[in-house]
């Protein structure tokens, strides 16, 4: 089944192909007029409740949200990546978003691989999967932690932070860096200490997970909050709405089919559903990781000229790169970041809710502004 993912530079990217031209926009009923009493409440860019700098304009009667606009361009960064060698380009790609660093680099590399003659065996690909899944675990834990924090839910909040720090340390131990910086290159994947076990994490998270979704007050904050059932949606947002969308089963480049795991879905389409899906995914990712043997391996890529598209399932949905290479240098590059799509979905789902629902809905999408506010020059 073909689904539309989003605009990638001059292409409109679908789950199994891409066409030149612009995608149909996610329709979002615009409320232009500002009736008596309504006004624009300016939130951000620099606020304690927002993890990154982002401007949010809420048109409201007071508490009641009529319309919401997200402006990711306050911290728009200009990345001087063009005419850099692949080796150098990776350094920039890594730093587009630390939280999804592995996803970005690996989707970039798979684009490169597609236009190169490379001898990459399954061990290397498995190590890439390992990175993405670890990243997914860390990020989903973080999203849940933010949700719990919004509810002022002290004990699980800190138990989750404890867990996140533990995962980070394991990643750091295994790859030498907690955010996979300097791990991937065109020659090898740097491994620092291959024997790291992730057992323990599952048990610890299970106890937290089971009890937070028992808490009536907490789930009351999430249920019915930010409902969005849109076939344009991606990642956990889509799966929480019952759509069976996942690049891991659609894109053949990474050998996910060798692993035994299931795509977790839910049907409530609200913030609660997204919480459930992300939590279930943590368990699935742990299962995938347990099936991977970590062994460092050199490999060789001979980069040819040409253009290609790489796509992976980042923790928040499809993350795709279009790369055009000319004599070993990146001459054109475009990014389709999951957050750019999630922002539109969020804005649509936030209407008709009240102010205090904002943080719950916002966090439930796992949006990272840093991967939206970028321009390649």
């Amino acid at each position: 089944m073909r689904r539309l993912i989003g605009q990638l530079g001059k292409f409109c990217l679908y789950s199994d192909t891409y066409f030149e031209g612009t995608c149909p926009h996610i329709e979002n009923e615009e409320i232009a007029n500002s009736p008596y009493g309504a006004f624009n409440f300016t939130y951000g860019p620099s606020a304690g409740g927002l993890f990154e700098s982002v401007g949010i304009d809420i048109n409201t009667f007071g508490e009641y949200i009529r319309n919401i606009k997200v402006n990711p361009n306050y911290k728009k960064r200009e990345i001087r990546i063009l005419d850099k060698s692949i080796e150098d380009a990776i350094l920039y790609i890594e730093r587009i978003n630390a939280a999804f660093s592995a996803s970005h680099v690996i989707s970039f590399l798979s684009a490169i691989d597609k236009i190169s003659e490379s001898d990459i065996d399954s061990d290397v690909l498995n190590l890439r999967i390992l990175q993405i899944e670890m990243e997914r675990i860390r990020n989903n834990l973080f999203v849940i932690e933010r949700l719990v924090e919004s509810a002022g839910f002290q004990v699980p909040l800190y138990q989750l932070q404890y867990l996140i720090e533990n995962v980070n340390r394991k990643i750091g131990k295994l790859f030498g860096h907690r955010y996979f910086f300097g791990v991937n290159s065109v020659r090898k994947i740097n491994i620092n200490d291959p024997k790291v076990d992730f057992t323990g994490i599952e048990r610890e998270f299970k106890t937290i997970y089971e009890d937070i979704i028992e808490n009536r007050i907490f789930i009351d904050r999430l249920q019915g909050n930010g409902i969005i059932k849109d076939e344009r949606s991606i990642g956990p947002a889509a799966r929480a709405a019952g759509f069976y969308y996942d690049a891991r089963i659609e894109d053949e480049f990474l050998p996910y089919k060798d692993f035994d795991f299931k795509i977790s879905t839910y049907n409530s389409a609200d913030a609660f559903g997204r919480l459930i899906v992300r939590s279930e995914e943590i368990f699935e990712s742990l299962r995938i990781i347990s099936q991977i043997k970590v062994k460092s391996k050199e490999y060789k890529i001979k980069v040819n000229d040409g253009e290609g598209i790489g796509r992976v399932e980042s923790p928040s949905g499809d993350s795709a790169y279009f790369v055009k290479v000319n004599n070993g240098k990146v001459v054109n590059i475009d990014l389709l970041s999951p957050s750019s799509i999630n922002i539109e979905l969020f804005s649509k789902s936030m209407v008709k809710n009240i102010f205090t629902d904002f943080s719950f809905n916002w966090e439930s999408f796992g949006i990272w502004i840093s991967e939206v506010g970028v321009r390649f020059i």
Partner: protein
Amino acid sequence: MSIFLSIFKKKIGYALSAITSIIFVYYGITIGNIYGYFFIISGLVWLFSSIFSIFYDTYGKWLSPLFITSILGMAIALTARTYIEFLAGWEIMTIPAYAIIGLNRKLDSPAFIFMGFGELSTILIFAGFIYAYTTSNSFYFTALDTYIPLIVITFGFMIKMGIFPFLVTEWLPIAHGNSPANASAILSATMTLVAAYGIVKMMLLSPDIPILGYILMGIGGFSIFFGALYAYISEHVKGLLAFSTIENNGAILSAIGVYMTYPTKTIAEFALDVIVTFAFAHSIAKTGLFMISGTVEGEALSKLKIIRNKLGEIGGILLASSMSGLLPNIGGVATWSLLESLFMEAYILHSTLSSISIITGSVIAMGEGFASAAMIKFISYTQVFKGITGKSAKITIFSIIGFVILILGSLSYLLFRNFIYGVPSLGIPNGFIIISEYSSGKIFGDISPFYVLILIVVFSLLTLGIFGKPKVRKTNTWNNGIKPREEYTAFAFANNIRLMLSKLLRTEIKGDSLETSTDIFWKVMYYIAKKYVSFSRRLARSYMNSSISWYIIYMILAFILITILVVIL
């Protein structure tokens, strides 16, 4: 004669009326009985509003003569010795009011609504007087042996006070909302006062009638609640104040109710003082607040053009805090004494009857909460929150009234002549405590507005002395690093309540507007009648996760039932 002058030269007219008002105040002081207080209050109100008018009146030549005529009418009504004089004054007071509202017409309805209700009330009062005459064969105000006239006249006056069930939300706000600020002040502050005066006068002449007392008590309670609630969500700069007048009249009415029920002689006397105190607190503070509404440009709270300065803010805050029933202002004393009298009654009766005053008291307590909210909204959006700083004589006048209100708090001892006390052993000499007692010697509660004032001042200075002044540097308001595009509107400020009490207020969110139903009261009553059968079950089910209106409806119901019960027995 100041009227005729004013036709040619309005400033002189106002000046003269100011002078006559001073004489009237003096006259009131010389009388020295309860009626005297009413003279003093209205005298002061006229004085202030006349002076204010000198700077305010930009409404052409007709406003000032009408304004002064109306004052004259009130003066006649207040000093009347016979029913006829009273009615004459009443009409002289009312007719110019139509004209004022008519002259300043934005819609046609207000003047006519006002007239319609005015006449209805006149008819009732007239009928009452006729009956009184037939029983006593005298046109003079004399003691009566029947309470029929009292009942009829009370309802007549209640219309004038805009009290529920006479369309709590309809005429008074519209009428006052559309008249000039200075006129609104005398309409809202003194015209309703004359009505209260009328009730008190007839009450003192008539035999006791506890049932009416309980009914008035309850009616007053609900007028407070709904008056304050609608004041809070009102967007009209004068309408808000008019609603708050309904609230205050409700308070006066429930105090009257306490007196009529006459639980004990002491409580009744106490209630009488409460009436006067409330009249003082309401009339004078309300005059000041209407002046504020006269200093701003525009009528919609969310779109006002404001000149503000520190003096104005302080004055405004004092007025607002008094209206919110906060110490050490006179408004605080009034609220305190009203609640005390209600709960003293509950204690002394110690029977199912007590529940009336308990419910009333609780409803009033809620009303006071809304009153604070309404006043915070009003003063924030007319002085404190926004606007450009500047000077204006008008601002100076109402800030003076603000300080008057503060002083009056400490003078309120004079209003509770028989309830003065002291505990020298604990550092408060005789004469500085107002006590509330349910029978002589049985003290229920006590309060010392003067000490509250002094202590707060002293401790503030001490704190300042100990911690010292802060080292201040001015910067921009912190709004997450950028300038906000728009300011938080007054509408939004009250919107939580529109959403929280959506069942009660019938809030409807449309694509391009958010509306609340204005004449909700009948709907609610109808709603109650319909829902009552299945009520208790619903309450149980919707105990935690339903809307607030259930609890309010519950209290209304309980109250009505008990009232009916009492009336039958």
